[in-house]
């Protein structure tokens, strides 16, 4: 393990911002929810009744996991956001470990490190150590803040450990995937899309099918087999079972050992599976930037489209359960109304809130696809293409057309699909109103995509500003209402001021103004891209 501390220090320097932001945001979720407990759950019998309803509701169980003791503020906070924090910690760890291992190897930086006096496994070991330490920091922060807010220390400790160990488990998953696949993109896809996404879906189905007081051997077994169920099975604030934590500890150790064995068996720069040979000649479509952009985005187009269909079709039907559940709780319905742009009807509020979140994610997709224009430049591919008879506008336009075009299509489709599945009758009429509601939000998407283009055109190194804008939008629409942000703050985002159909009247002022701003940003960005220097490798 020669050179371990040197590599550790290097990795820390390169990644501390990434980890710090994740850890700070995740550490806030439980204490923030705890502070809202008194508002959300009224004292006395009304509160108990509501909690009983919540606990018995299969949809809630599917989304959040099984509740154990909701009468304690800590138990409620863990059920509401604790398990979610654990899943987000898993996401953070998977991204973090791949970023420090396979992504660096792909860029050729690990080769430099390993050519020094550094052992074969040192870069992986250092990256793992760093990820585990940051998860520990997250666990300690959760435990300390929950204990400081006067919840029982055992529950606080169990919450912190369960969250940190869920992150540790996915440090292991990410480390294994990083050995298996030669590209960081593919490793990320398998860690988050297949492993984390698949386990979450399984957990949702299993938890949603379980009924209180009924034992089902198969469902129990499936629950115990799922690492994402373990945080809940530790039962923080509900007669803690600390021994359950041995499961993630053992699995993490196993996965990390596997990653090390795999690393010994492969060549530097390669994966375990040799990449299959490609075509000797290009297909006819691959003859200009448009064909190239399609080839580069093909996987993303299919993945995002499928994901949005599943999300819209899966979330829509929840509207019915939400109605029954929330009507009995004024604090909850008030929160949902605020998320849903102040709609009176609960179903409408739910629809608007969900559509808002999905449209924001679609905006994120559009920006990440346009961001490819930027990464193609830093990779040196833009230089090669622009040395052919390719105008700059065509190069920018190819990514813009796919990212922007898909964002428009998916928004309309998601709006329509969500409306149809949310409406009890499932009429064709809902198709039109749903698409219209989504269309009213499109100017916001144009603004973020325009902002991304502006940054690429004038300040490509500052591209991450657009990620901050989208991150804030997601945060504001998802947690802002829960944290009782004032209305003006909730609306301070690209989609915030647009009319929320069908509740709001179709007022054109915001739509027109934002469309003009968005298109102006796009035009300015393209003009900048045409006149600036193109960076090489």
């Amino acid at each position, binding site marked *: 393990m020669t050179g371990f501390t040197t590599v550790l220090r290097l990795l820390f320097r390169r990644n501390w911002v990434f980890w710090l932001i994740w850890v700070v945001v995740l550490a806030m979720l439980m204490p923030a929810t705890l502070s809202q407990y008194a508002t959300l759950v009224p004292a006395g019998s009304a509160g108990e009744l509501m909690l009983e309803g919540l606990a018995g509701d299969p949809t809630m169980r599917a989304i959040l996991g099984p509740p154990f003791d909701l009468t304690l503020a800590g138990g409620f906070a863990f059920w509401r956001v604790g398990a979610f924090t654990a899943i987000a910690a898993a996401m953070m760890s998977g991204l973090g470990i791949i970023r420090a291992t396979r992504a660096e190897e792909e860029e050729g930086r690990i080769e430099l490190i390993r050519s020094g006096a550094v052992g074969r496994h040192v870069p992986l070991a250092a990256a793992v150590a760093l990820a585990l330490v940051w998860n520990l920091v997250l666990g300690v922060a959760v435990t300390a803040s929950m204990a400081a807010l006067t919840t029982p220390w055992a529950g606080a400790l169990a919450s912190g450990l369960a969250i940190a160990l869920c992150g540790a488990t996915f440090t292991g998953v990410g480390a294994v995937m990083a050995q298996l696949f030669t590209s960081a993109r593919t490793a990320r896809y398998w860690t988050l899309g297949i492993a984390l996404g698949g386990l979450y879906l399984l957990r949702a189905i299993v938890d949603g099918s379980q009924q209180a007081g009924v034992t089902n051997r198969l469902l129990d077994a499936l629950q115990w087999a799922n690492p994402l169920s373990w945080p809940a099975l530790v039962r923080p604030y509900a007669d803690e079972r600390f021994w359950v934590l041995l499961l993630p500890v053992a699995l993490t150790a196993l996965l990390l050992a596997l990653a090390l064995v795999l690393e010994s068996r492969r060549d530097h720069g390669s994966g375990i599976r040799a990449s299959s040979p*490609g075509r*000797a000649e290009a297909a006819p479509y691959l003859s200009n930037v448009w*064909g190239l952009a399609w080839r580069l985005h093909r996987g993303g187009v299919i993945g995002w489209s499928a994901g949005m269909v599943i999300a819209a079709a899966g979330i829509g039907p929840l509207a019915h359960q939400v109605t029954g559940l929330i009507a009995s709780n004024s604090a909850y319905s008030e929160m949902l109304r605020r998320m849903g742009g102040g709609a009176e009807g609960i179903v409408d509020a739910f629809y608007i809130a969900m559509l808002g979140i999905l449209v924001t994610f679609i905006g994120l997709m559009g920006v990440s696809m346009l961001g490819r224009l930027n990464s193609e430049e830093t990779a040196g591919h833009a230089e090669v293409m622009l040395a052919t008879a390719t105008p700059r506008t065509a190069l920018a336009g190819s990514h813009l057309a796919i990212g922007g075009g898909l964002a428009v299509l998916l928004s309309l489709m998601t709006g329509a699909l969500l409306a149809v599945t949310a409406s009890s009758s499932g009429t064709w009429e809902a198709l039109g109103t749903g698409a219209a509601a989504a269309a009213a939000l499109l100017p916001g998407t144009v603004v973020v995509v325009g902002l991304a283009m502006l940054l690429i055109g004038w300040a490509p190194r500052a591209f991450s500003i657009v990620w901050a804008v989208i991150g804030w939008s997601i945060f504001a629409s998802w947690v802002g209402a829960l944290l009782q942000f004032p209305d003006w703050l909730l609306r301070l985002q690209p989609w915030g001021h647009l009319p929320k159909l069908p509740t709001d009247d179709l007022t054109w002022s915001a739509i027109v103004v934002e469309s003009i701003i968005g298109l102006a940003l796009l035009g300015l960005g393209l003009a900048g891209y045409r006149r600036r220097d193109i960076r090489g490798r």
Partner: protein
Amino acid sequence: MSNAIEITGLTKTFGHTVALDELDLSVPTGQIHGFLGPNGAGKSTTLRVLLGLLRADSGTARLLGGDPWQDAPSLHRRLAYVPGDVSLWPNLSGGEAIDLLGRARGGLDKARREDLIARFDLDPRKKGRSYSKGNRQKVALIAALASDVELLLLDEPTSGLDPLMERVFADIIRAEQTEGRSVLLSSHILSEVEALCDHVTIIKSGKVVESGSLEELRHLQRMHVTATLRHTHIDIDSIPGVHDAVIDGTRVSMQVDAQQMGALMSALSAAGIETLTSTPPTLDELFVRHYEAAV
């Protein structure tokens, strides 16, 4: 005949760094022009200005009779470029990259493509991420050479190629010239430029240090002379233009300024020449001398 490349007073700065400082360069049509300089001299920056990737601060550049910035896409149909550090799309095969780049330039000659793949011994089915540096270089070279263009802009094209492939490359470039194509070949590998180019421009810190045909440059330089003499009672150091003379018994060796060759020969004949060799300076010597002078 018009010039394929005509650059006058070209200046380009990046922040406080001056990359090109009043650079002049002209490449007549049909010439293989060597563009020599150490790393960071501004060779790549010049090529990237010629490709319209960078905008010059001042000075003019003409390329195939057009403006490299304004007319970039249409000019690029008539030229091909090989970057110094070739980066390929990781999930496109080499064959796909060759076709994509060739077609985006306006089409490529299929027979020539196959011929080049065979001569460079490239496996076109491998994915971009699994190629070595040399193989990535071959992909870019094949993509550039398979098109019928008037001008080739090559930025250190043989870095990463093994000696066998370097020879293949040299053969192909010579054939290109006989077909009337112009080539601007940037390099710091002197033997390569010496073997291929008839004209050379040497730059350092964004400025031209020397430019001309190889003969003209050699004319200014010292020849290396070795001789075996019958009589050794000769005062070599008194002959004008002679430097670094070494006498070892009857054997003498020295450097002599090219224009003083006649004076040296008469002195040596008087001492009775038994053997005599005279070699022109290698480009290495020219190069090292320029660096030393500029330091």
